């Protein structure tokens, strides 16, 4: 907004172009010029996770934009993590580093009554009742428990999403925020293959590498089940 001298006329004109399509699910949306719709749909697959000490568990968040006509910029970050635990986020092969956010752009798309024949990298098809098949961006959440995690203990992990839209000319930009909460249960056994101790200088690095490999294996398994 502008603060003007009395009598001065102000004008604020927003110009935007909507580039909207998910080739996997349907044709491009028409450009909407009269009303901006900022939308984000999310699917939290599970609310609970189980992980054994020293191992890694993975789950998926799906993000879609079937009611908006503006691309949605999402910043994902870890809001809550138990001390000594490692949480990493991954989308389309890009991982967040510790303490950083993971950025992705969720393009508008159309739901479809039939499943797409192919899906772009980093996306998955999900059925959203009653809307239909939706092309969603998949974010994998890797939860790495320390080897010292107490079996039977319950922890909380929270992932936050800050959503932003670039609105040219708007005085007050819209933001959106939501959280994804997970209850994490530490199961009984230590992770197989995780060494109890190593040579000096490797005690830290080796378990992390093994855990990373386990996470990658988890990611591979996850991809195999993707429709």
């Amino acid at each position: 907004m502008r603060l003007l001298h009395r009598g001065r006329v102000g004008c604020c004109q927003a110009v935007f172009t909507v580039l909207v399509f998910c080739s996997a699910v349907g044709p491009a949306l028409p450009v909407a010029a009269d009303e901006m719709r900022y939308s984000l749909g999310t699917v939290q697959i599970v609310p609970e996770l189980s992980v054994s000490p020293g191992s890694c568990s993975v789950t998926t968040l799906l993000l879609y934009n079937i009611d908006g006509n503006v691309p949605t910029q999402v910043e994902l970050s870890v809001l809550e993590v138990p001390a000594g635990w490692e949480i990493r986020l991954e989308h389309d092969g890009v991982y967040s580093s510790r303490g950083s956010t993971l950025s992705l752009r969720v393009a508008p798309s159309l739901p479809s009554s039939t499943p797409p024949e192919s899906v772009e990298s980093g996306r998955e098809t999900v059925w959203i009742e009653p809307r239909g098949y939706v092309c969603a961006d998949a974010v994998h959440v890797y939860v790495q428990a320390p080897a010292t995690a107490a079996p039977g203990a319950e922890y909380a992990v929270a992932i936050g999403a800050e959503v932003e839209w670039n609105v040219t000319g708007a005085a007050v930009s819209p933001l959106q925020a939501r959280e994804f909460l997970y209850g994490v249960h530490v199961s009984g056994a230590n992770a197989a293959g995780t060494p109890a101790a190593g040579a000096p200088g490797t005690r830290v690095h080796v378990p992390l590498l093994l855990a990373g490999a386990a996470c990658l294996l988890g990611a591979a398994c996850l991809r195999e089940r993707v429709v």
Partner: protein
Amino acid sequence: MVPSHRAMLTRVCGGLGCALIFAALIGPLPGVRMPAVASDGTVTVFLRVEAPVDRDTFSQTGDYVCVWAGEVTVPREVTITARSGRQYRLFVEDGRYKSTRLDTLEVEDLGPADDALGATSVLAALDAASDLGGFSYQVTDMYYPGQGFFVTSIDGVAATGAVGWSYRVWNEELAASPQVSVERFLLGYDSGGVALPHNQVLFYWGYSSRCLPLRVTPRESSVQCGLPASLMVEAFVDAAGGGAWSPVQGASVCVGNECRVSDADGLVELGFAAAGTFRVDARAGFDGDSYYVPADGLSAVTVVAPCAVVSFRVEYPGNTGIDFGSVIPGASCVPALGQTVDRGAVRVVVEEETTVNCVLELKAAGALAGDDAEMPFSGITWGLCADPTGAVPMTSTYAEIGPSDAGEETSYDVWHWLSVPAGQPLGVYDGAISYHVRVEET
């Protein structure tokens, strides 16, 4: 003497839970497909009794009602009272299946049998079920002399003319219609012409072979979270050599109050929005040729991954976002551009696919800033109606806009007004409002 087992009428079949949709492992209900013979030799079977809703209109409607369904441990021997009043003891002794008429002690040898299994006939199962379910039944020993017992009535519904009670024995492949009387078919035996395991016995009223039992079979053993469960509706059609399951079009498949109609391939898709195990029923009325015995919820969909779907949209009328245009310092309650009496500056919408109850909130994200000056965000007020008198200042902590219920589209219009202190420096001020979707604790 007419045996009376009536103590109560219990309808346990088709008891479908209420729910809607998402990830699932699918399978039959516990107990439905269990082996008919346990390791200790005990024969158990799932038994159902399907009667007409209205006997007078059944020929037109084909509507069935389930009298009782449940798991039955088939007794090794049973004493039956026929409608004539004569009593018979059915038992196995020395490897022979025998029937003793108690008033004359006349013994009839019904063939070889297993002492360990006993006389586990369909009639014995019906007798046990009638005790469990509190329904009555009648058999006659005189319908076809020498041909065994014939069921003439169940739960007070008597056979009339060509319309009466029939039974089928199900295994994994067939819903066979044995051509022997009810005491002659021994459950758990591999010699009755119906391969083991004998999972289910179905008694149904109607026109015998024109009444086809329905079944619902999930097509996938598991479904990805969010994908619908696809189920096949089939009817068993008798034929020489046994018969086969054939897809049924137009059957109504229901989970609770949510129903779908099967297509030409007998397929339906159902979705779920909550965790749990949900029974799936299928039924179809008379189609001019066949009658269909309902499936009675014997299949189930177990939702194992409760997906939390949240879909939230923010709309602005026009294309300016929230903008107050040019405002003169000292102005009060200047409405946002684009908002009208009928339409707020912002419309926030929770979409119908949202599966959890939410609370919508908003807050100011920082201050209004511009040209080396700041203006407190509290200068912007908001309200849920077009009247600014009830508006409240924006705060830096979330304020509740309102709740939204799972499964329903919920929208709120939010009106905004700006008041500017008289001494506020001139300039272009920008800021941001954050809309928050908070999932309510369950």
